């Protein structure tokens, strides 16, 4: 059946690729239409839900990649695991959080929130590839705005910005109206 064939094709492509592929690339690699890719991905996700499956299609940074399931990480860690040894400092994380949750945002806006110069941190985050320039703000001086990158999503294993961790309802209330921008 065609459906099965499409699913099989998508599975093989995800297996052969070692980087996350977005749906557009999956379509061009498989020769399927965008809708066929979407449907095949859906079927794959369902198939891999089986408890006897150790891998599954994971949304990562706007694309799809096959990855081992979280439940069996513990058993694989010793042999295949690599621990992230370059964690972000508190100051870098604060700056990154401001950019992630309020993007696009200018350096001056970051500085206003943190009360300290953001110059070094912005440069650091740019160098690590977590943020990128995101157009100029339409105010006098036309300052540069910054936003997060695909690499940022990948690092935090997020499918999209919408997957950023959220404040609890209580915290939301506590921080009041200023929450609006967070949606």
């Amino acid at each position, binding site marked *: 059946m065609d459906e099965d064939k499409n699913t099989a094709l998508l599975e093989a492509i995800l297996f052969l690729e070692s980087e996350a592929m977005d749906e557009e690339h999956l379509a061009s690699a498989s020769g399927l239409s965008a809708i066929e890719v979407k449907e095949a991905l859906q079927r794959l996700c369902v198939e891999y839900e089986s408890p006897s499956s150790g891998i599954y299609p994971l949304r990562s940074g706007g694309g799809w990649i096959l990855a081992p399931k979280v439940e069996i990480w513990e058993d694989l860690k010793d042999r295949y*695991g690599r621990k992230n040894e370059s964690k972000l400092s508190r*100051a870098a*994380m*604060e700056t990154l959080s401001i950019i*992630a949750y309020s993007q696009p945002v200018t350096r001056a806006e970051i500085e206003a929130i*943190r*009360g300290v110069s953001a110059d070094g941190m912005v440069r650091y985050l740019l160098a690590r590839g977590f943020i990128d320039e995101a157009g100029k703000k339409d105010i006098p001086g036309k300052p540069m705005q910054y936003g997060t990158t695909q690499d940022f999503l990948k690092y*935090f294993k997020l499918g999209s910005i919408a997957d950023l961790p959220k404040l609890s309802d209580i915290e939301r209330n506590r921080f009041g109206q200023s929450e609006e921008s967070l949606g």
Partner: protein
Amino acid sequence: MNSTQSAAYVAEALIEGIDAVASKRSFHLSDFDGPLDLLLFLIKKNEMSIYDIHIASITEQYLECLAGEDRVDLDELSEFYNLAATLLLIKSRQLLPSQDFDDEDYEDPRQSLIDKLIEYQKYKKLALLMEQREMEVEWTLERASMQRVLPFPEPSDDTLWADLDVWDLLRTFSSFVQNFDSERIIDLYEEISINEKVALMLELLAKKGHFSFVELVTRPRSALDLACAFLALLDSVKNRMVRIRQHKLFGDIQIFPFENEVTHG
């Protein structure tokens, strides 16, 4: 430990960390990410609400912190002093009758400080969530790297090798050599290497079964060539790759494969 547990553990550890700083009698500006961080810490330490800061006492403690600091660099310090100035301004305004500031245009520095603190606190909280997330994903499982392609063509498929000559080989190799620092390529770049001699020895063994040492020396006038040939021979004997025989002192050395019985001749 699953991810929820580890996240909870992180949060706990962070709170403990804050308490540890609080219980310390002295602390340094470098413990804080900025003036707002310090101010939030003092408010928490004094168990005040952000909306109801006891300005006089907080300002006093804040200035105390600054006074005790001489190591932080000047740029950073100026940011701390900026906030000190704001605190002092608020404190001084509080001493004056309030009706003086009923003016519509008057911006209450106290209110704007509160707003700032709330905003900053919100992002601190979000940064904490991001930190937890970072912790949850700190392990990645790495897939062995390789070119994942369909199975290779059959070994008989010669199309891959069409039109290659030995110079292609050298050119390819030299491109690697270019990319290495001299220390790493010393073995590779050496005109005559022990490895080369070992390889030649294997070749002669395969071709002739046994051979003499002079055949190993391809550049008889080169001392290096001779030395490499000899070292390679010693190495091979040690590794039980070859056996050697010498029919007289200082005579030529005959080299045999290790497994072969050494026969006379």
